[in-house]
């Protein structure tokens, strides 16, 4: 199949992915589509293949069979060098732990990917400072990340992921090592800021409370995407009795994601005009990566 059949509004799609590790099959024909600007949660029990699916979507793993499409292009057939470049310029990552360089300061860690993309030192550190501010870590920029608490370190990781103005943020159990309240704060900041930046988010979690920050939740079971769960709804008061349940709402296995309308993240600092993302609007291409200088995103309202 060589004709891209990109669903309208669809940014990222896995089609019938098969992936094994040695004799062990991890994915057995997994398909999922993620809409532009959508926050998608992938849930599933341990060993269901949910992390493998995320790694395939992010171009970290090469699927054995099937296709991954990103922004109208095949991702899985790119060379390793091209995928690496893509991961550096268009994708941000937040993992459970081990992603920061403990000997470097928080500001170094956030600036690092920008410097790797040949952003000037001055711009990189300016952006890093603005993002750390945004995540409530303005006073921690000079601290080594090894000295930060788990929640602070995860917020640095979120800052680092978003500083690149990614089209997609991939998060694998981003709150896995945090307590409830801290994890919630990380999720709240990550999803709220991603929405403000217009970034798409794919988050893998086994925690339903984490998943409930997403616009849409899918379930992975035995290497397949087995059910399309919540697609949001109008908030009701927590004290209100549950409304009658409509069990057949929406098609199962929906491949036409329709993000629900975003409520304003009114608790976050108001956005003011800032430089918009240089890779918005389809200007990014594999042949013509954005120049390093313009790939720096200043948080809206931050710089």
């Amino acid at each position, binding site marked *: 199949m060589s004709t891209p059949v990109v669903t309208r509004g669809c940014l990222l799609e896995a089609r019938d992915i098969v992936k094994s590790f040695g004799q062990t099959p991890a994915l057995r024909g997994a398909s999922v589509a993620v809409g532009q600007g959508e926050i998608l949660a992938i849930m599933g029990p341990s060993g269901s293949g949910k992390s493998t699916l995320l790694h395939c979507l992010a171009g970290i793993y090469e699927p054995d069979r099937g296709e991954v499409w990103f922004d109208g292009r095949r991702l899985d057939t790119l060379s390793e060098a091209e995928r690496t470049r893509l991961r550096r310029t268009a994708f941000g990552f937040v993992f459970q732990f081990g992603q920061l360089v403990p000997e470097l300061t928080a500001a170094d860690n956030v600036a690092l990917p920008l410097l790797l993309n040949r952003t000037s030192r001055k711009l990189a550190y300016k952006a890093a400072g603005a993002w750390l501010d945004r995540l409530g870590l303005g006073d921690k920029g000079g601290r080594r990340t090894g000295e930060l608490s788990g929640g602070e370190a995860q917020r640095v990781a979120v800052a680092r992921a978003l500083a690149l103005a990614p089209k997609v943020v991939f998060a694998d159990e981003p709150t896995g090592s945090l307590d409830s309240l801290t994890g919630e704060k990380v999720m709240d900041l990550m999803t709220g800021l991603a929405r403000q930046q217009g970034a798409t988010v794919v988050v893998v979690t086994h925690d339903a*409370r984490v998943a409930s920050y997403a616009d849409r939740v899918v379930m992975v079971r035995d290497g397949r995407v087995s059910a399309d769960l*919540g697609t949001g709804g109008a908030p009701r008061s927590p004290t209100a009795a549950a409304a009658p*349940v409509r069990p057949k709402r929406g098609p199962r296995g929906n491949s036409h994601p329709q993000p629900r309308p975003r409520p304003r993240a009114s608790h976050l600092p108001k956005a003011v005009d800032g430089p918009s993302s240089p890779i918005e609007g389809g200007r990014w291409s594999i042949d013509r990566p954005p120049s390093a200088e313009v790939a720096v995103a200043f948080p809206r309202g931050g710089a």
Partner: protein
Amino acid sequence: MYSQLVSVPLTLLGLLEREPSHGYDLKRDYDAFFGRGKQLPFGQVYATLGRLTRDGKVVPGDAEPGDGPDRRRYAITATGRDEVDTWLAEAVEPEPHLQTVLFAKVTLALMLDKPAEAYLDTQRAAHIRRMQELTEIKRTGPLVDVLLADHALFHLEADLRWIDLTSARLAELAETVGKR
């Protein structure tokens, strides 16, 4: 207190979908699978069967020779089957403490060779949607609402974990429930 959530008429109707049965058989199976240590009184069994007969959901067979009230076999009607199907397939309201009713539905689904896994998915989806609503409230609401939403979220999460575990144990449960 949770057993009040189990609908006795629907559960008996579900048991009758396996095969026509005497009131005694129904009581025995109800007590074994759904009674949770509390027996269903005979009086309630016959009163329920009477109402189900009146509503056209079961039909009593001919009286069989012998003594006692239990001389008829009851059989489910098409109306009764439809009612069981609808009940099994619909999600329970995503409020805390639904284990008992969901357990009854899953057990019956396995007895009747119906898609228990799909019913659990339906319930999962209903729970997740409610959790998304509550999370939305937490993002924007006053602290009191946030605390109430937290409480509901933790309970719904506990339900979901139970649903996941039940999902993982369906094969085992199907064996326990057995084919008759």
